[in-house]
């Protein structure tokens, strides 16, 4: 399979997955481009221990998480130097919500859920994205995350509990 074929088969998958992590069209495009650069550079070292799709899923997840980390770091440095705040860890990952897949009538409630989702630990966030947004099975999710099905199940239970707490806290404000 050449690069063009890989791109046309996986570009929508990569873009949509990046969108779920970043909830912003421009950021998702940047990440998707970065993902395909990595695929182009590393395709010769791809060992067929897993499917190409699973491999691309993993690259997309890691690149999205790295992007979020870098963005948080930049924002923290900027705010810290601009405002001289006491605790730079208090800066929250604020997203300019621009998800083209969200229906207009659902936008407000979906945005609230994504805000809560962004506060979860990364593994819990990934489980929710793969199971609920990507509609993957527990076995597929476990394969992508290199975990057991039991671990995925437990992560999902914890994610739901934490999401509920965060959403209730936000509603109480």
């Amino acid at each position, binding site marked *: 399979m050449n690069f*063009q074929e890989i*791109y046309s088969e996986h*570009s*929508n998958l*990569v*873009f*949509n997955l990046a*969108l*779920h992590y970043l909830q912003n*069209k421009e950021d998702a*495009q940047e990440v*998707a*481009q970065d993902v*395909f*650069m990595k695929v*182009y550079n590393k395709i010769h070292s791809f060992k067929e221990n897993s499917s190409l799709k699973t491999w691309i899923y993993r690259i997309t997840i890691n690149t999205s998480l790295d992007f979020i980390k870098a963005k948080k770091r930049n924002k923290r440095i900027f705010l810290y130097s601009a405002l001289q705040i006491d605790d730079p860890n208090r800066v929250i990952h604020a997203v300019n919500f621009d*998800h*083209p*897949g*969200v*229906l207009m009538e*659902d936008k407000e*409630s*979906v945005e609230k*859920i994504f805000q809560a989702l962004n506060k979860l630990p990364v593994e819990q966030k990934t489980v*929710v994205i793969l199971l*609920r*947004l990507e*509609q993957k099975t527990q076995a597929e999710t476990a394969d992508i995350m290199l975990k057991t099905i039991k671990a995925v199940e437990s992560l999902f239970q914890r994610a*739901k509990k934490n*999401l*509920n707490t965060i*959403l*209730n806290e936000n509603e109480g404000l």
Partner: protein
Amino acid sequence: MKKPSSKKQMKDKLEILAKIQKVNAPDEMYGNILSIIKNRKNATISMTWIRSAAAAILILISVEGYMIITGDFKMNQNTTPSIESIIPSSNNLLIYD
């Protein structure tokens, strides 16, 4: 009326995520990727150039080394500098009456 359990409420909340539609990747993305690949290829120096540069530097260093060694050897053989040639003697004579 009985309040729905928090588990049920959460399930309802998460179900809304399934309504998010898949979108197509932007058309310009493939072109952007190709141009990044092209730019990076142009920016990187080919291995042939790196090898030739390394070989040229090695040759220069060897020639330099050879010249230093043979030059020293000849100097030791032919000329033994006297102390006068190293320290210039002064012709100034200060006479105190």
